[in-house]
């Protein structure tokens, strides 16, 4: 399977370091969330993939080969600020961008109709872009990024400002694209949405990768966390003296425990049973927002 590799990307704007040896891979078949605080270098990275930023160092590779103009024709891009001609008709605009990506006229027209219907804006095909709502402009923008059936899809904040229906539609499309073998990389500050849509994430800060991996890995990485309820011991006295176990929180009878790496959870379960009837014994996942805060340190 083909991967998009970002290898040691470095970029400096005067005294500001935008990218500092950034390295990560977007595997095909995956939706990868690209996270980071404002100014972390997300947009610069995406622009670098399309040659829109002059890099001081590093390489972007696709299928193991450095990306050039011909390869970029097979990529789809949706910038953060809407990249559409305000006065142009919706269908003409999508078709035009399809042709610039190498489609012939008939194929571009066919693909335009298909994507406008899929993204539920076919009824606005003969309207000017400026007459559309923000959400519909976003859908048209996505249609423009998808019209040439790209192998790599790079989207900068595609979910920003969308209503729940729009988020669902665009989220479904991104997952469909990944399932059909495409690389999908998108940035967002809506971490709950990212958690729902993405298989994996890359988190950057100050132009460096600070965490990456599948959402499951990141959510379950680090010390294991347990939430336990024992009838007759709402204060968790049974767990206070267990070796390798620290009690982090007691909340309404639910006791939250953090286990050392060497501690066997069965030992904890046995101790709980000995104290009373166990009504809850659950390993807790970290939310992506917790992972993010830990990774960027704020």
């Amino acid at each position, binding site marked *: 399977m083909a991967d998009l590799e970002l290898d040691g990307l470095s970029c400096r704007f005067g005294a500001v370091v935008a990218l500092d040896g950034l390295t990560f891979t977007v595997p095909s078949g995956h939706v990868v969330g690209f996270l980071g605080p404002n100014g972390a270098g997300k947009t610069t990275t995406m*622009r670098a993939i*399309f*040659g*829109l*930023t*002059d890099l001081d160092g590093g390489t972007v590779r696709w299928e193991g080969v450095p990306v050039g*103009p011909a390869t*970029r*024709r097979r*990529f789809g*891009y*949706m*910038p953060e*600020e*809407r*990249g*559409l*001609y*305000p*006065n*142009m*008709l919706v269908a*003409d605009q999508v078709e*035009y*961008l399809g*042709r*610039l*990506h190498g489609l*012939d*006229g*008939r194929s571009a027209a066919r693909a335009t109709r298909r994507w406008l219907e899929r993204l539920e804006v076919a009824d606005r095909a*003969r*309207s*000017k*872009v*400026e*007459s*559309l709502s923000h959400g519909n402009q976003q859908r048209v923008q996505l249609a*423009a990024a998808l019209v040439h059936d790209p192998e790599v899809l790079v989207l900068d904040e595609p979910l920003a400002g969308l209503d729940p229906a729009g988020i669902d539609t665009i989220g479904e499309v991104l997952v469909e694209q990944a399932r059909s073998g495409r690389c999908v990389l998108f940035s967002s500050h809506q971490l709950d949405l990212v958690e729902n849509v993405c298989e994996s994430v890359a988190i950057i800060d100050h132009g460096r990768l600070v965490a990456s991996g599948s959402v499951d890995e990141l959510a379950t990485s680090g010390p294991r966390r347990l939430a336990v309820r024992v009838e007759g011991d709402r204060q968790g006295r049974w767990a206070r003296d267990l070796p390798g176990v620290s009690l982090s929180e007691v909340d309404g009878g639910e006791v939250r425990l953090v286990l050392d790496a060497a501690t066997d959870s069965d030992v904890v379960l046995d101790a709980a049973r000995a104290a009373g009837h166990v009504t809850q014994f659950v390993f807790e996942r970290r939310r992506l927002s917790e992972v993010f805060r830990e990774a960027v340190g704020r």
Partner: protein
Amino acid sequence: MKALPLVVAALVVATIVRLRRRRGGRGGAAARPSPFAALWEGSRTLRAHLGDRRLLGDMGLVAGREVRERLRGRVFRVVTAILFLVVAAAVVIPTVHTGAPRATRVGVVAGSPALDAELHAAATSAGTAARLVGEPGIGVARTALGEGRLDVVVEGSQRLVVLDPIAATDTSATARFVRVAASALGLARAFARAGLTPTQAVTVARARPLPIQSIHPGKHARTASETTALLGVVLVFIVLTQYLTWTLMGVMEEKASRVVEVLLATVRPVQLLAGKVVGIGVVALVQAVALVAFALVLAKAVGSNLVHGEAPVVVVATLVWLVLGYAFYSWVYAAAGSLAERQDQVQSLALPLSAPLIFGYIVSLTSVGSGSASLLVKVLAYLPPTAPFAMPTLVGFGDVVWWQFGASVAVTLLSTLVVAQLAARVYRTAVLRTGSRVRLRELRSSSPR
């Protein structure tokens, strides 16, 4: 009259700016189909049959979009309609002034060959012609006058009869004829009473004033080719102003809307820049050729002198310099557009850019108005920023030979190549830059994409 071209040009430029502002401020309603859009839709089938080949690659696609969008735009339609009206007026109005006047219908009672000769001579002096109708008596002649079949009645050498009093301010052909005929016939009667022989009377009547000689030469009447050059200079100015503004605004709008990021993700900057320049240029050329063809056909139909003598040569020279002028300036305007992100920045850039354009236009126009090519015009004809106005002016005066024309073309073409390279460098560096200005050092170090 001298100020007329300036006024026309100012009106058209103001209309362009006004319409652009209105378009920018309009809430986007669904677009209405236009005749141009219908034409484009109709051509889809033909293009599909031709296999949809991309003749000029990405640049051709970009140029095609420019052509489509410009033809579809309201600004283009309104300005084109105005220009056609202006051209029609410029061609037709002079012929109305110079057209042959209707002959004055003169009823003659008790006429004679000598009286007829006097009346024809009076008509010629009045700048008209007389159609003499013999009448049997004054009563019949008055009736014909009252019924509008005659304009004036001459009763022998006694009197002239008209329907209404002739006002002092009346400059109609009939009024002029009546004044001259009354004076001439009165003079003839006075000569007869003074006892002059017919020969003496003719000698006195043909007396001419002494010639007046001036030290400085007088202004000669404008020739057809000079008139054509005048119209050509105005046309070049209007078309260049309109389409260069489009280029400037078009590049700025692509940058401001960030659509340039999407485009440059798949198209090289130089392809995008060249496509825009070529696309808008094609629209400009088509409009100019249509206007000139319309002017020539109309001139032929109404008998205008625009199609006589050297005028067609001036027309061709004007079109050549329209293309060369656009080619030279369009790169500069496109590069300037890439430096701007907002309307106010565009306006501050447009003023210095248009200064040489306006200078060349005014100097050339003044030269045509004065009837001779000044040394300044002869110099400006070889400088690329002003040659599009000055060289057609020299052609209109017949003050240029083929190799001089060719030398000026060569200088402009070479300059255009240099300017295009510099413009591409500025565009490449600036069009993706937001927030901060591009410095010269960055232009030198920018890598080609």
